[in-house]
């Protein structure tokens, strides 16, 4: 058994004059919950379709379980897909839908029946076996699609935005259920989504896509805390950017000059003295104080607006020409409206260098 369930080696896919997937190389490990995350049109769905076999790579090679798949048609690949629209066959019952894959393999009738019921029990729908897809709710259809794919015991399960059509509450439930299911049956899940929260909460590792390229692959923690470029920092979570020029790099830290101010932060990839870069610092990693304790990354700012949102107080301050978001956790319970800064007041913005990243584009 190969270390990787799926590998893409330098894969490019061109449609007409559009490069949908641009020299993508990545390895998806066995039994991993792997998310492909990115805005629409970034190449994540095309990558999934390349793995499933619905598209052929223009150049490059794909391996499933260590073996190159070449031109193997989808019906001979040991992967199954849960489609965004579910793609349940409208002219077949739930049972017939779920049994379709086994029927194609020529599974004996008794075993087929048994495994279909098993799969339906797995998604808690055995009572709906004789229904037609249009007689079911979106959430139920989604589960049938899942059962239909899982019953074939594929090496890899591909999921194309499977929760996209569900409402917010059902979505949260299904996220949890999918994650549990994956742990139970222990097969590799490759999950396409544009929802960063979904990717962060469910995945073992995430690949962030943009314009056909993979920008970063890492655990949710790595992706959030150590984005490797401006796009990833911006796409995952909220952040403040301060633009400037790098003046010094030392011991993993870099110094950024911006409009006469000096900032220090962790140096990202490819950061060298003399190049333009941005400092990225997340709103919850910045503090507003009356008097700064240190002289590093501390500047006086004007409070522009204050919004109380329960767990946090969200403040916008102006640093020179630029607005900075600051989220202060409400760790003290008080009814005093003057406990915090008010708009128009002056405060000091401060953050330790460890909390900031200096990144290139």
């Amino acid at each position: 058994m190969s270390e990787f369930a799926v590998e893409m080696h330098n894969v490019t896919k061109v449609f007409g004059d559009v490069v949908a997937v641009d020299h993508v190389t990545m390895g998806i490990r066995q039994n991993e919950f792997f998310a492909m995350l990115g805005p629409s049109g970034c190449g994540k769905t095309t990558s999934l379709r390349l793995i499933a076999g619905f598209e052929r790579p223009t150049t490059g090679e794909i391996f499933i379980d260590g073996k190159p798949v070449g031109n193997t048609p989808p019906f001979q690949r040991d992967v199954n897909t849960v489609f965004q629209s579910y793609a349940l066959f409208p002219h077949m019952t739930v049972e017939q839908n779920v049994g379709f894959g086994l029927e194609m393999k020529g599974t004996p009738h008794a075993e087929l029946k048994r495994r279909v019921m098993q799969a339906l029990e797995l998604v808690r729908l055995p009572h709906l076996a004789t229904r037609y897809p249009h007689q079911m709710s979106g959430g139920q259809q989604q589960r049938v699609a899942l059962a239909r794919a899982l019953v074939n015991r594929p090496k890899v399960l591909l999921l194309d935005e499977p929760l996209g059509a569900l409402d917010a509450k059902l979505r949260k439930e299904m996220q949890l259920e999918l994650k549990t299911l994956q742990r139970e049956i222990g097969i590799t899940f490759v999950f396409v989504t544009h929802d960063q929260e979904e990717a962060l909460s469910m995945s073992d590792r995430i690949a962030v896509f943009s314009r056909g390229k993979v920008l970063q692959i890492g655990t949710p923690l790595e992706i959030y805390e150590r984005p490797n470029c401006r796009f990833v920092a911006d796409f995952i979570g909220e952040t403040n950017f301060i633009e400037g020029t790098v003046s010094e790099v030392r011991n993993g830290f870099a110094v950024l000059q911006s409009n006469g101010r000096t900032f220090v932060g962790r140096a990202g990839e490819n950061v060298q003295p003399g190049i333009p870069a941005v400092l990225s610092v997340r709103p919850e990693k910045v503090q507003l104080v009356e008097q700064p304790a240190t002289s590093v990354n501390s500047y006086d700012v004007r409070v522009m607006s204050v919004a109380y949102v329960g767990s946090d107080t969200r403040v916008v301050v102006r640093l020179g020409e630029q607005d900075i978001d600051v989220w202060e956790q409400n760790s003290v319970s008080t009814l005093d409206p003057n406990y915090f800064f008010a708009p128009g007041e002056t405060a000091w913005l401060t953050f330790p260098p460890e909390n900031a990243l200096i990144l290139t584009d």
Partner: protein
Amino acid sequence: MATESTVVYLGEHTETWPPRELQRPSLGTFALVAVTLFTFAFLYVPIVVLVFFSFNSARSGAVWEQFSLRWYERVLSNPRILEAAMNSLIVALLATLGSVVIGTLMALAMERYRFRSQPLWDGLLYLPVIVPEIVMGISLLLFFAAVRLERGIVTLVISHIAFCMPFVYLTMRARLADFDRSLEEAAQDLGANEWVTFRRITLPLLMPGIISSALLAFTLSLDDFVISFFVTGVGSQTLPVYIWGQIRRGVTPEVNAISTLMLALSIILVLISQLLQRRQRV
């Protein structure tokens, strides 16, 4: 009409019955109802009158004598009429089969593939809809004369496929545009090869479209007179061509009876197509 406030429509529009203008009957509504009733009367009175007089025993015209089925007996015992009806049926069945197969394949090619000559074919497939049927009739007559193909059932079937096919194509193209291709991908993903996918998924899901285009082609073929008139030969007359000859010869009550029978057939075909559509909707 215009109000001071500007309402922003957010919700879905709800159907109200009776429509608002009927709740307060206005002159406009009255006119709508009147025109509609008049139009249906205009469409149906001649047909109903014809059916009525087909049961008249009198030989000439429109003087009612008494109820009689004698013209129906005459029709059903006239070998020339039965032969013409048989010809019509054979031609319609073959033309339906041919045009549905050819038209569906072409719709599949045009909808699912991209090739350079597509705009050309698109235009070409609309042409038979725009070209008057008399032009199509005489050009086919000249063609069959030029290739020395004797006019008969074969030339009829060829011609009928030619004018039915674009209608089948247009129907199937619309159905294919609505077809969710991920269903076929799902089948392939589950291990079905191209042929099994076509047989188990594509074909059953296209069946309603195929049936309604077949009904359309069948009706178009049965109804056609002008093109058949030019490409038919001696002894291969279709029913409309035979009727035409009888009408031209003068008053024959037999024609009323044949017309009534053809009308009944049309109603049956409409009923079938409506029932099929209703079942589809459920």
